[in-house]
Structure formats: structure tokens, C-alpha cells
């Protein structure tokens, strides 16, 4: 794979405390999707069901998938991530059974990072106590905002009080905590956004994932905006919030190691890094995505069908082999989002001179506009370019001409 280039590895100098690049790419991840939520957030188009009826069967099916796919990953598992949906709906016995299966079938490193996404309303003392007794050692809390107006608008299950109290409680049990914050919410003033950030900083959270509110098709949010019940999202406002976000957190010693992720040294999320750096991961559960060697695959996004297939001993997945062009496009797309950038040498050695020349050709206009910059052989988006990085990446794509 392209990221195994020795040249690139030598060129990199990473933060001492964070894993080296070489370490990152040799790790494998397990992602486990828990497709249940208490209620549907207005903006969400993720895969979940609000009925917990099939939870036990699903946990069983996940166990089955884990054991069926035990030989797919080439390296040891260094990172396990429970995402959703709402993984904090899992009980102690659910978690224990999943961990047992993982440890029975997979080689797991000595100190893995094991994250569980949790919603604030689930994090009471007893749940946290239970969690801290399992192998989970990192929490990613879906705070989104510390303000009632925002939480209401998004139809979150928790309130502003729980947003804060869940963190205070969680800190008694966990050191490695991340929270999600959403910006660019209609009518969210700059002051309110700054207040959100101040709150997070005040609470001493070492990792923050922050996303612009996006209006996805077929969501309640889209419907309300179309019906003019909620004002539309405004890109100018989102950009303003993003600039404040980057400035504020960088000033406070967080690194913006990936477009939406900010971490204090030693606290970068391994799971997220996996996606953006081309590390292998197995995605278990309905709708989960996997990436191993040059194959991407994804499970069916329907709980009953998923359960049924696994009960019948089948893997309900579709797969796709990546072509050289696909890999090049993905390399550009993912790397431009990270602080590690696109390495021109890697492009040349992994994809060939044609790709390298094509890339050089297409970056010039962006360099002139101050949206891309070259630091040696490393191509990065500038501060101005960050908020346009998908568009820029797409311009640098090679198209598969049929």
C-alpha cells in the first residue's frame, strides 16, 4: 500500500508523545457499530433504529461476525471503537460478551485504545462505574452543545445540564475523554459558540471533535428548513465559527491534526487517524465499513437483514476493489484533511510519475490563490484552504475515464 513507503517514513517527524507515523500505519482497528438510538436527532442520517427490540440478537450477530472475520486483519488490533448509533445503550453483559469474543479471536496489543461513544443522558454514576470496570478506556461524549436552544433545535435526547454533568462525572472515571461539538447551527451567535468552546476548555477535555451542522437529504432538519420552520444553515457563519474554533483551540495547545479533530499531544484519536491515514480497519455491525489491503467493504444497513444473514452464517457485505486511480484519489482526499498532508514523493513512488506530474500541474492555481502550500515535498491546505479542502481535493482527482 501507498503509505508503506520508507522514504515517507524517514521524512516525517512527529510529536514525541503521539505514535510515530510508522506505528500508526502498522496498527489495525476494530470498529463496532451499535445501531440503536433513543430518539432521532433532526440532522442525523446515520444508520440506527429507535427500537431496542432486537438488541440482544444484534449483539449476538456482532459476536458472530467478529468470529467469522477473525482472519481478515493482517496485524494486531491496537484500537477498538464502539460507534453508533448510541453504544452507551449497551449493558455490561453486552460489552463483556463482545470483549470476550474479540479477545478469543484477535491478537490485541497490550495497551489498546478502546473508545465508546456515549450520549450524556446515559452517563450516570452507575453506568460510568460499570464502564470503568470493562476494558473501555476512552469516552467520546456526544455533547454537541452546552446550550438548551441548540440541543432542542437538533432534537438531542439530553439537556444542557446533562451535557455538563456527564463530563464532570466521566472525569472521575476516565482521563481520555473526547467530546463532540457542533457549530454553524442556525441562529447560533458567535458569542454562544465561543461560550461553548470556553466551557469545553474549562472542563479540561483533552480531545474535541467538532463538526459543522450539515443538512443531509431525507432528514427532519432538511424538511424543517424547506418548510421554513428552521432558518437555513449559513456557510459564512459556519466559516466564522470554524475560524474561531481553530484559533481558540490552537492557542490552548490543541493540534488540529485532522479537519474536524483537535487533540492535546498524546490524545489524538487512533480511530479517526485510521480513517484519514489509510490504516486497516474492520467494521463490524450493520452499515459498518471495512478497509483491508486494497479492498473496501460495507455491511448492509438494515438491522433485521443483518441479523438474519449472520444467523444463516453469511456476511451481508458488498465489496469494492480499489484501482490505482481510486487509491490516488483517496490518498489526496484523506491526506489533505490531515496535518500530515500529501507527500509528493509518495505520490511518485506509489502511483507513478504520471500522477505526480498531473498533481503538480493541478496545484499551481491553488498555490497562487493561497489555498495550498508546499513545505518541501509535503502538500498541505493553508488556513484559508481548510474550509474548502474537499473541493480542492476533487480538483486534484484523476478521473477514471471509461
Amino acid at each position, binding site marked *: 500500500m501507498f503509505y508503506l513507503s520508507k522514504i515517507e517514513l524517514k521524512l516525517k517527524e512527529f510529536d514525541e508523545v503521539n505514535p510515530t507515523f510508522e506505528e500508526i500505519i502498522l496498527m489495525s482497528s476494530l470498529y463496532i457499530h451499535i445501531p440503536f438510538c433513543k430518539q432521532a436527532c433532526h440532522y442525523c442520517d446515520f444508520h440506527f433504529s429507535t427500537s431496542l427490540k432486537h438488541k440482544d440478537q444484534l449483539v449476538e450477530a456482532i459476536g458472530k461476525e467478529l468470529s467469522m472475520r477473525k482472519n481478515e486483519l493482517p496485524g494486531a488490533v491496537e484500537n477498538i471503537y464502539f460507534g453508533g448509533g448510541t453504544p452507551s445503550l449497551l449493558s455490561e453483559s453486552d460489552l463483556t460478551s463482545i470483549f470476550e469474543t474479540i479477545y478469543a479471536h484477535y491478537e490485541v496489543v497490550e495497551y489498546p485504545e478502546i473508545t465508546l461513544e456515549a450520549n450524556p443522558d446515559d452517563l450516570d454514576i452507575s453506568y460510568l462505574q460499570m464502564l470503568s470496570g470493562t476494558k473501555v478506556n476512552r469516552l467520546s461524549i456526544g455533547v454537541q452543545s452546552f446550550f438548551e436552544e441548540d440541543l432542542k433545535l437538533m432534537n438531542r435526547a439530553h439537556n444542557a445540564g446533562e451535557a455538563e454533568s456527564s463530563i464532570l462525572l466521566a472525569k472521575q472515571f476516565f482521563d481520555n475523554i473526547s467530546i463532540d461539538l457542533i457549530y454553524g447551527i442556525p441562529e447560533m451567535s458567535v458569542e454562544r459558540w465561543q461560550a461553548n468552546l470556553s466551557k469545553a476548555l474549562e472542563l479540561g477535555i483533552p480531545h474535541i471533535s467538532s463538526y459543522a451542522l*450539515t443538512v443531509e437529504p431525507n432528514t427532519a432538519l432538511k424538511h424543517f428548513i424547506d418548510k421554513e420552520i428552521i432558518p437555513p444553515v449559513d*456557510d459564512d457563519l*459556519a466559516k466564522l465559527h470554524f475560524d474561531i474554533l481553530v484559533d481558540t483551540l490552537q492557542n490552548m495547545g490543541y493540534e488540529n491534526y485532522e479537519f474536524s479533530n483537535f487533540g492535546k499531544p498524546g490524545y489524538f484519536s487512533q480511530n479517526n487517524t485510521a480513517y484519514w491515514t489509510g490504516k486497516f480497519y474492520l467494521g463490524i455491525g450493520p452499515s*459498518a*465499513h*471495512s478497509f483491508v489491503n486494497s479492498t473496501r467493504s460495507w455491511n448492509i444497513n438494515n438491522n433485521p437483514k443483518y441479523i438474519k444473514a449472520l444467523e444463516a452464517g453469511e456476511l451481508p457485505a458488498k465489496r469494492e476493489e480499489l484501482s490505482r486511480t481510486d487509491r490516488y484519489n483517496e490518498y489526496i482526499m484523506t491526506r489533505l484533511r490531515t496535518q500530515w498532508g500529501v507527500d509528493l514523493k509518495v505520490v511518485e513512488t506509489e502511483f507513478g510519475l504520471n500522477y505526480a506530474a498531473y498533481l503538480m500541474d493541478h496545484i499551481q492555481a491553488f498555490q497562487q*490563490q493561497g489555498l495550498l502550500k508546499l513545505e518541501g515535498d509535503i502538500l498541505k491546505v493553508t488556513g484559508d484552504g481548510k474550509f474548502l479542502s*474537499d473541493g480542492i481535493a476533487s480538483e486534484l482527482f484523476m478521473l477514471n475515464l471509461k
Partner: protein
Amino acid sequence: MKNIRNFCIIAHIDHGKSTLADRLLDFTKSVTERERKEQLLDNMDLERERGITIKSHAIQMVYPYKGEDYVFNLIDTPGHVDFSYEVSRSIAACEGALLIVDAAQSIQAQTISNLYLALENDLEIIPVLNKVDLQSANPDEVTDDIVDLIGCKREDVIRASAKEGIGIEEILNAIVERVPAPKGDPEAPLRALVFDSVYNPFRGIETYFRVFDGSIKKGQSIKFVATGKNYSADEVGTLKLVQFPKKEIKAGDVGYLITGIKNAKEVKVGDTITDAENPTKNAVSGFEDVKPMVFAGIYPVETDEYEELRTAMEKLQLNDASLVFVPESSAALGFGFRCGFLGMLHLEIIQERLEREFDMTVITTVPNVSYNAYTLKDKDKPIIVSNPTDLPEPTYLDRVEEPFIKASIITKSEFVGPVMSLCIEKRGQITNQTYLTQDRVELSFDMPLAEIVFDFYDRLKTVSKGYASFDYSPIGMRKSKLVKVDVLLNGNTVDALSALLHVDNAYDIGKRICEKLKELIPRQQFDIPIQAAIGAKIIARETVKALRKDVTAKCYGGDISRKRKLLEKQKKGKKRMRQVGNVEIPQEAFMAVLKLND
């Protein structure tokens, strides 16, 4: 000859000509069960998809009547005004016409214009009231309308439903009884009318003709009168669903001819075929070179596909002789072609065929008509301007003339007001107003052809809630006060967006063009000012604000593929845009002026 009947089916658009043709073919068992399909004669992909007839189609069938077999040559014609010349040539090939009138919609503009064409050619008219099966049909009133229009008897109007197969036998009988058998001198020198031609990639051009005098034999040496060229009749035959080669096609009959001609330009619809050695002295009258009415530039989206585009256009011209083009160049778009079309539908069809049959992505510039410009230096000699950028500078210009048309609109009386004000807004002058029936009015206008290019049909549809039909014919050039309105993007004039407009509405339209472009040009990484100008004077201005956000925050559960594909799609979308200076302009923007009211 006495057992031949040549007839065409004429009507307003969508009144059911092609469907009726299906029923006639069924009833006479001219098609097998397996060959049967709806609007069978509409055999081009585009015709089938759009449900309209674009070309005339001829077919032969045999009908036994009172113990004798009759040979019917049927020509199905297109209803749309763009193809009216073709209809006129089909009519000239026949002795009779089935005039189809929709029992719900009654008489419409093309009903009248096609009827007059048929009467001019002394055709026997058989009025058919179609779609009597419809809930909304008004058979009695519409019969009255028809009787009023053509002065026939009520009993002459045949009630039919092409859909349900009602009245078919009656129509067939009427064809035998009422349409006269062809006359003509079988011994005279060959005299045949070309009424259509079709391009066959394997056999070259197939010419469809009607023999008036003499006969055409396989191997005969023949001559086309208008082009003056001689050929050998390699193959002749009659037109069934498949072609039937024959030794000879005699006076009165309809057939096809193959000569090895490869280029449609050599076969002109309306031309006369005669014997090369012993030519006829009186060619069939009424031949005209089809004149394009609307012009537009066609450019490849990728500049390096110019030669490919040329090849594609040449191939298209092989089977559509009404398409004309010459090379031109534009500062904004590079090399392309200025093309002439019969009308806006024709333009659309050509653009679609280029994409579909030749996989060419093209940009079509603002359509315009052809003007006569006179300079101060030579006030009598017109310069023909079919591209706005060719208009001489105002300081050299004496005057400009633009083509006018006589327009006929039939609408319900409740919409007369709005229709009139639309026509007046479009610089029309009312010349006549006739009540066809109590609540149906025919309005006649003289108006500039250019105005129907600009969003006229859509507006007419809107103001009349769909109850208006429209037909026109050219009536010559008239003096007019025109100015060239330029469009500047990011400070640079984009010549392909220039338009010639009447002084009185130049400001208003200039402003609306800017507004429309603002809607159509996607945000880019910088602000893009859009300006409309007459000469150096800016008359309108808008700005496309810079793109602020072009990144998705989250990547759901590692779904990198989906994200990659989305961005690939974004890039493909951009490939369909044209970069002018540093601004990306989508295709639709070049046609923006046509859709100002959307």
C-alpha cells in the same frame, strides 16, 4: 393507378396522427403481432422518448374493398411548427389528407395551418374527430367547429378513437371512396417529387419519392432537377415496414430509391427526380431550400474535441439536411460552429443527438436570428449577421433589419387579454382577431422572430394556462432598433453570452440576464462580478459571492468510498463546465437568457 390512394395524416401536435397510423396498419394487417408497438412509425429513439414525430414517415398497405385490392401510401407527418416545410412536401405528394382533430382540444393553430397547406395543394380532406373515448371529449361542439372551418357536412366528419380502435374501418372506406386516385401520364418522361430522405449508414441515403408521371426503373439513369446531379437508380422499391425492392415504380405510386449518395445535402426534400436522358419540362413546383430560422454557436466543452465535433456534425448533417453550420471562433469558447436550425425544437434535438449518438458534450450559446446590417458606407448592401459579435460598431452602422413573422395564436376567449399583452410586450402588432367559435379566438400578429426565441413558448403556456396553440410563418425583414448587450464575468467580456436586443427592453433584459447568471454560476473560491453592458456602459451588475465552505465534516464510520465518489461526481460535474478566464461556467448559463422567467 385507379387502385392507388396516396394520403397523409395532418393535425396539430399530439392530436393522435401516429397512433391513428398504428390502427390503420393493424386493421390492414400490415404489421404482424410481433412488430406491433405504439406509434410504430416513430422509429427514432428521440421520437419514441419524447412521444413526438420529428420526421415524416411513409408506409404502404393493402386494403381489400368491395372485392378489389387497394394500395394505400400513408405519410405520417410531424405536428411541430419547426418541421412545417417537411409537412408541406408530404402534402404535395398526396391526393388526400386525414385531418385529425382532438375531440377535447378542438381546432388548434397547426390544424389550421396544415389544413390551408392541404387545401392549397387541392387535397381531398377527410376530417377525423379523434379521441372520442376521452372523458373530456366534446364531440358535438368540436364537430361544429370542424364543419365551420372546412365547410363540410356534419356526416363527413368521422368519429374515431385511435386508442380504442373506433371508426377505423370507416376511415379506410372513406379513403377509397373520397380520396381521388392519382392522375398522371405513365408514358410521359419521369417526374417524381422527393418528399423525404433518410440516412442509412450501410446503404447511404434512401430517397422517398412520389411518381407523378412516367416511371422509375431499377438501373435507370436519373437526374435531380434542383441540384442538377445525375445518378443511377441502384435500387427502387415500395415502403412496407421493411423495404420491398421492385423493378419499377409507376406513375401514381410512392417508393424509395437508393443511388449510393452518401450525403443528405445532395438530396433536397421538394426536389424533382427525372430521367437523365429525357428530362421533364415541368418540375414539381414549390421547391425551396429550407432556410434556418434560428442560429446558435455549438462548441465542444473540451477545447481539444473540436475535430471530433466537426466529424459528429458532418455525420448528423448526413441524415438531417436542414442542419447547416460553418466554423466560427469565440474569444471565450475557442473554436466551434455557428449552426442554423429550423427552430428551437430542432436546436434541442440536434444538441441531444450530439450527446446521445456521438457522446459529445457541447455548449450551445444564446440562440439568435439572422439580421441584415447596413453600414453608412454602403446603405444598400446588407451584411448578414447571424452572430451578435459580427454586428458592425454603432458608429459605422446605418440601420439593422430583423426577420418578422406572421404569428397565429388560437386560445380561449378568457385568455385573450393576457395573450395580447404578452404579444405586445414581445413587440407584436395585432393584425387580426377572429372568433372561431364563441369561446375560441384566433389572434394574428406580426412580430419579430427573435422574440419567439426568447422564452415565448413558456410564457404563452403560462399566461394561457396551457390553452393556446401557436403557429408562424416568416414575412420578411423589417427595420428595427437593436443594440448589442454584452456580458462581463469577472471583468472580461464573454462573447458567447452577447445578445442583440431591442433598445426598449435591453436594460430590463440585461438586468434579468445578470440575475439569472448569478443563480446558475456556482460559487467559486473568489467573488465573481457579473455585469451587463451596452458598449462601455454598464447597465446591470450582480455578484456571485465566493464559496465559503466546500468540505464535509464527518466521515461516517469510515465510509471513505462514498466520500470519494461524491467528490468524483463533483469533479465530473465541473468537467461539464467551461472555463472562461478563471471562471467556471456551466452549460446552462449560456442558455440563461432563454429562461429568464423561470
